[in-house]
């Protein structure tokens, strides 16, 4: 934030500061409201179908944020995120059945799922992160298929029977609520982590790698170490989400735990909202997952949903090529520039502070456009 205001003159600064603070307050207030709404959602809406949608959505919010934390920031588009998801699900599933864990303590196993996924991320990353761009994308797909096939073929993973939880965890009336809150905690934790990374030296190194890896290395960024760390963090979160998903669904099959659609969904969500931004993946998941769920119950023929998803995707690519948040911001800036040129005062306030709020708000979240 200081970089934006330091460029301006002193008189401008005195005028800008209250606006900056107001922008911050507005944003924090908005976040608080969102969090409160999220926290009371299952208490207000008790319909099991809608709480189930909400859990699914939270799972995808967390997963998209976790994807973004590596791929969005570093520019390495991974289509193998389901490797972590499935590893987490299988690990938690196998451990739960082995130790016969029941009740609320099951959630204590989630970090173990994350840990297993993080362990998998090390060799995965060491191999895949040596190559860039398209080759990286394809090698993540290849490793994804290897994992799915191993889940099919090994004896301890249960083959195509998968791993299921035979027990019903707690009473059916508000069955979804514990999952909802654990999902909410995971999602918030993922968002906080990605905010911390974005505003750290480590995050800047990732962005530098995205913009020009060779130059970043020339400037002293230890590219492999930075990339691998982010990859492992992303894997850890996704593994925990996979574990939560297993408890929620009650069964992991090779084709559902290692699901190519999961790979693509998280990427789509991040790109829809804006890959590399903080809020983009959240927004994308909040739009896309409920939409997909709604389509799934509205159209009995699943292929209508598939075609409409494809059409939506193409529309986003053609009309919002950088995602809703960055493209929307660009449009907003353009609109404001036009308005300022005409000298019209902004509605509901004096012109200078209104234009002042626009500068810092884009400055602090300019993740998509750092070049």
């Amino acid at each position, binding site marked *: 934030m200081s970089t934006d205001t330091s460029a301006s003159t002193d008189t401008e600064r005195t005028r800008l500061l209250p606006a900056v603070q107001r922008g911050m307050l507005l944003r924090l207030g908005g976040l608080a409201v969102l969090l409160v709404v999220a926290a009371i959602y299952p208490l207000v809406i008790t319909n099991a179908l809608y709480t189930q949608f909400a859990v699914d959505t939270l799972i995808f919010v967390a997963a998209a944020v976790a994807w973004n934390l590596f791929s969005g920031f570093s520019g390495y588009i991974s289509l193998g995120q389901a490797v972590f998801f499935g590893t987490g699900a299988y690990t938690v599933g196998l451990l739960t059945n082995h130790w016969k864990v029941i009740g609320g303590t099951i959630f204590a196993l989630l970090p173990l799922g994350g840990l297993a996924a993080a362990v998998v991320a090390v060799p995965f990353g060491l191999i895949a992160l040596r190559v860039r761009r398209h080759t990286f994308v394809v090698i993540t797909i290849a490793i994804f*298929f290897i994992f799915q096939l191993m889940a099919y073929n090994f004896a301890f993973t249960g083959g195509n029977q998968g791993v299921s939880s035979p027990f019903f965890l707690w009473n059916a009336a508000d069955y979804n609520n514990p999952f909802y809150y654990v999902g909410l905690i995971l999602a918030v934790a993922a968002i906080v982590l990605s905010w911390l990374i974005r505003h750290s030296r480590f995050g800047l190194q990732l962005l530098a790698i995205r913009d020009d890896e060779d130059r970043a290395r020339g400037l002293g960024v230890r590219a492999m170490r930075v990339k691998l760390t982010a990859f492992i963090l992303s894997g850890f979160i996704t593994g925990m989400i996979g574990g939560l998903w297993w408890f929620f669904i009650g069964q992991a099959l090779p084709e559902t735990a290692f699901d190519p659609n999961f790979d693509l969904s998280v990427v789509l969500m991040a790109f829809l909202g804006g890959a590399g931004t903080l809020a983009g993946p959240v927004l994308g998941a909040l739009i896309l997952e409920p939409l997909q769920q709604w389509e799934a119950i509205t159209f009995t023929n699943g292929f209508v949903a598939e075609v409409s998803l494809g059409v939506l995707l193409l529309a986003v690519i053609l009309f919002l090529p950088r995602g809703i948040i960055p493209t929307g911001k660009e449009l907003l800036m353009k609109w404001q520039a036009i308005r300022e040129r005409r000298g019209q005062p902004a509605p509901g306030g004096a012109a200078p502070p209104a234009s002042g709020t626009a500068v810092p708000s884009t400055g602090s979240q300019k993740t998509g456009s750092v070049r």
Partner: protein
Amino acid sequence: MGRELTEAIVDGILGGGVYALMAVGLTLIFGVLDIINIAQGILVVLGAYLSYVLSVHLHLDLFVGLLVTVPAMFLVGIAIQWAFIRPLRGRERTSMSLLATYAVAIIIEGVLYLIFGSNYVNLNASYVTSGPKIFGFYLDYIYIYGFVLALLLVAAIYYMLYRTQFGRTIRATMQDHTAARIVGINVNRVQMLTFGIGVAVTAVGGMVFGATGGGFNPNTGYDLISRLLAIIILGGMGSIVGAMLAAIFMITLEAVVDVLWSPSWSVVVFYGVLVLVLAIRPQGVLGRKEARAQ
């Protein structure tokens, strides 16, 4: 065992020839447009369904039907490039092109499901179920015809690339878009035609695959694209010869592992080889080292 192994090798090489044709189309598109066409797999399936419709409803011979399906797929390719690839610009072009072609793929898949359902179908003709006995097993004619046709087409593409003026413009565009533009090449036109050619080969690939692959449905596209991607990466992206060799090697390897070990592990070996090779040689077997800018 010996007989089965020979059969696996022969089948693998002949089947690999068809994959080589599809992979050459994909790698050509990559080389000229610098994008990966995720829809290539489903386009092969679309080509197979076109052949299916022509042979079932119009009773056209599979090979005669190609005279219709190849131009049709060429036009489909040009339409996709014009509508969805051409508008992509800027830094996000790579990832956006992946998503755009994926979107095209799921739309085609959905439409194919709506029309044909999820039942597996086969392309049929007299030469699909009969053939000579060699090395102690029966080899259907379609394998031989398909292999020869694929080889001829790959040779034709190779000739076009290295012996014609148009091929020179394609190779120039592959090497450097800006320089190609400077020497007066209409890069947009080259990109459009290349995408058309790269997709047109899926008509042939789809027909032979549909007649030899043990049935297909709209979902088969995923299987195909993941194999094709592995093949062109292994061969070195943008390398025609690399794609051919990798296709034949990988498909043969898969067939041999099928026999020697088990069908459920052959695909693991397939991708395992890819990962292993890339760990040693990141640019693929015959690939050039990537340029500096990411």
